[in-house]
């Protein structure tokens, strides 16, 4: 087969973004059979269409990346950067060189070039770089195929409407974004790392990026609010009622009572009295169907419903897209244009048994989707393609696919009609209230109800003037709660609201903040290291933590896309801002370096704390590394005061603390990650749960 490829010339070379996409494109173009050539693990597809010979090959994400040619970690500022093969820059990616070699070889005998990468900033950048560097300057001559799903029909249609001018500005914007992010990141990170070196005579990589800055500062601002929070006391009053032998709790008409005195007075005035239903109020309300998913909405919903992190959702959605089950997920649109052919999609989904009834119902109605306001010129909102999965989906893919399909059904459905019932009960001269809710007309809830989180609250039948038995009147003291910490979903939403990052980068930025040790926990808390980085940035480069600068850069990139600005102009602006910031970093090197050191010490100390010591009760168990042997073990902070609580730890694997205690012995639980699935471990060697397991092993005969 390799010989067949060598014999070919003057063919059309199609460059795709990923191998799965290349296979789909080849499958769609084939008229007869599909020939696959494997060159050093790189698949190349040979296919004929309308008398033309196509050779389809792909990148695997970014084959080229921005780098400082000198690569000297102590040197900054640097502004002369260039694009290099990722295989050279990153030693872990040297397998990518084979792919570049194959693409270069294929380009030599090709006559026409088609960029068939995803139509967005990243896809355009990937395609442009392959055509420019691997194919020897074919970026200007190449044609562009534009599509939103990898279904055969759409791909075939895309190849009948190829254009040369599509995506040119998008590529410039994408490449400029990469350069800007690199020079902000590399210069400030080197500045901070150098400051650490100057103050401590030790090298430690401290990183910060253009978009990481504002995202981290949101978490820090919230953390400051939480750590300086003073709870204010207040009181709630509830009355426990007996209605039709059912205990129902009614809340006092005033939600919050400021003083204990007033709360006690209300209780005294209600005690020993029965209630009367003073008023019954019902009101109807209509709930519109949801709008189609864009990537941000999908990430938030998948987090709410399944607990998937935004980056997990993106990865699963991309897999579903590559399997041609859903449309391109990296979109900000909330609109579904009629051109996607609703009827065809619904007929496709009808073939899947569990959706049959739903699709039939929707096909009988008006096929007008309820749409949102956000638009994306490149792609519509996320929708199922109607293709049936050819291979078994794993449970997470299945869940996300079901969510997308049901959302698609819901946008075509009618409003839901619900009823709110408010009952006001007078006890003495005081009013108490109970609320109920019920659904009168399911509408879109029929399809999406299982994910909506809306439940009916049924109340017993009541009539105005009826007597109600009061079992007890309770006064409960409460305290104001601090504002909630961000979770991955709410942080993503905040970034979206503030225009920080793009639909494709936000999830990645959150993951990076975790990896750098700047944030921690499911309910996100800032670490001391995160604080010290933001403090240094606020001192030297307030721009990088300001939302405004990030917004300005995004606006400038959009102007490149529309052709109103050039990449060079945007770069000039960035460099002048950066020079000022780096100068301040240099001036404050000692302060910044020693602050980061202090923060690192307390962050590591905190990360190593496992929980209270069950032996001395006053100390805390912590992970200690022996100076003599270098091995890690658990010890008590009260060792100096005589507490000898200790336990060995596995020496291999990444250890994660949990703040949880073993239900049996009260020693802390940790997770050790050696393989993909972490191992949950009670650190107590003598924990009874372990001895039970030992006893259960049957004795050998």
């Amino acid at each position, binding site marked *: 087969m390799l010989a067949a490829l060598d014999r070919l010339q003057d063919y059309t070379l199609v460059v795709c973004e990923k191998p799965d996409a290349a296979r789909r494109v080849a499958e769609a173009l084939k008229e007869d059979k599909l020939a696959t050539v494997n060159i050093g693990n790189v698949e190349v597809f040979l296919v004929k269409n309308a008398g033309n010979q196509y050779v389809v090959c792909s990148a695997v994400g970014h084959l080229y990346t921005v780098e400082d040619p000198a690569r000297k970690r102590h040197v900054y500022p640097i502004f002369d950067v260039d694009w290099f093969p990722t295989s050279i820059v990153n030693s872990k990616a040297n397998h990518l060189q084979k792919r570049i070699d194959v693409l270069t070889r294929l380009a030599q005998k090709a006559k026409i070039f088609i960029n068939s990468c995803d139509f967005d900033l990243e896809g355009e950048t990937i395609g442009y770089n392959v055509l420019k560097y691997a194919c020897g300057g074919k970026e200007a001559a190449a044609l562009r195929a534009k599509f939103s799903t990898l279904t055969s029909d759409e791909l075939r249609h895309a190849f009948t409407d190829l254009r040369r001018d599509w995506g040119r500005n998008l590529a410039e914007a994408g490449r400029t974004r990469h350069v800007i992010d690199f020079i902000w990141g590399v210069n400030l990170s080197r500045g901070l790392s150098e400051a650490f070196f100057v103050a401590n005579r030790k090298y430690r990589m401290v990183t910060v990026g253009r978009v990481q800055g504002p995202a981290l500062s949101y978490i820090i601002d919230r953390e*400051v609010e*939480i*750590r*300086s*929070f*003073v*709870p*204010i*006391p*207040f009181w709630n009053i509830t009355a426990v009622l007996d209605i039709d032998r059912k205990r129902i709790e009614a809340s006092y008409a005033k939600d919050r009572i*400021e*003083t*204990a005195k007033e709360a006690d007075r209300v209780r005294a005035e209600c005690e020993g009295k029965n209630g009367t239903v003073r008023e019954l109020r019902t009101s109807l309300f209509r709930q519109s169907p949801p709008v189609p998913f864009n990537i941000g909405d999908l990430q938030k919903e998948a987090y709410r419903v399944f607990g998937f992190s935004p980056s997990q959702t993106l990865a699963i959605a991309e897999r579903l897209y590559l399997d041609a089950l859903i449309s391109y997920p990296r979109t900000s649109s909330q609109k579904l244009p009629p051109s996607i052919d609703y009827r065809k999609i619904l007929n496709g989904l009808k073939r899947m048994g569990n959706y049959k009834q739903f699709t039939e119902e929707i096909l009988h109605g008006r096929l007008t989707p309820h749409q949102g306001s956000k638009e994306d010129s490149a792609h519509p909102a996320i929708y199922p393609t109607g293709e049936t999965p050819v291979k078994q989906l794993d449970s997470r893919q299945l869940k996300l696919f079901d969510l997308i399909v049901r959302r698609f059904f819901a946008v075509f459905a009618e409003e839901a009609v619900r009823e709110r019932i408010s009952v006001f009960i007078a006890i003495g001269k005081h009013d108490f209230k109970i609320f109920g809710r019920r659904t009168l007309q399911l509408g879109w809830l029929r399809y999406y109800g299982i994910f909506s989180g809306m439940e009916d609250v049924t109340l017993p039948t009541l009539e105005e003037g009826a007597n109600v038995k009061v079992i007890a009147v309770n006064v409960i003291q409460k*305290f*104001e*709660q*601090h504002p909630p910490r961000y979770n991955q979903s709410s942080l993503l939403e905040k970034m979206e609201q503030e225009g920080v990052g793009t639909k494709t980068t936000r999830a990645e930025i959150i993951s990076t903040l975790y990896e750098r040790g700047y944030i921690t926990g499911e309910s996100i808390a800032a670490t001391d290291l995160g604080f010290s980085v933001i*403090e240094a940035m606020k001192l030297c480069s307030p721009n990088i933590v300001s939302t405004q600068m990030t917004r300005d850069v995004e606006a400038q990139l959009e102007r490149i896309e529309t052709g109103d600005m050039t990449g060079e102009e945007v770069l000039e602006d960035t460099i002048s801002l950066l020079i000022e910031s780096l100068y301040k970093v240099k001036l404050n090197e000692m*302060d910044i370096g020693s*602050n980061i050191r*202090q*923060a690192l010490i*307390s962050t590591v100390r905190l990360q190593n704390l496992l929980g209270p010591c069950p032996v001395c009760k006053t100390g805390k168990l912590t992970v200690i590394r022996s100076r003599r042997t270098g091995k890690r073990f658990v010890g008590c902070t009260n060792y100096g005061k005589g507490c000898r609580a200790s336990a060995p730890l596995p020496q291999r694997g990444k250890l994660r603390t949990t703040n949880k205690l073993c239900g049996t012995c009260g020693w802390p639980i940790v997770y050790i990650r050696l393989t993909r699935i972490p191992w949950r471990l009670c650190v107590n060697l003598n924990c009874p749960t372990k001895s039970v397991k030992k006893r259960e092993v049957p004795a050998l005969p």
Partner: protein
Amino acid sequence: MKCQLCHRKAELERGYCQYHSKAYSSLVSGYPKWKRTYEDLAWEEYLRRVIALPETGIWVKEVAEAEVKGMIE
């Protein structure tokens, strides 16, 4: 000069850093609200009650503990 409660630089007033100063301000502004709730609540008693609450912010607790200690000494 360092903050009396952490490694950060202290602001001139009371020897606290920017964050512990903010926590001190929150304590001061919360006191009238607590006094409205519990009449005749002394400052020290207020601090002790705030320290005991799980809802209280960690910096507020640190400042309140330092203030109580200062009063005892």
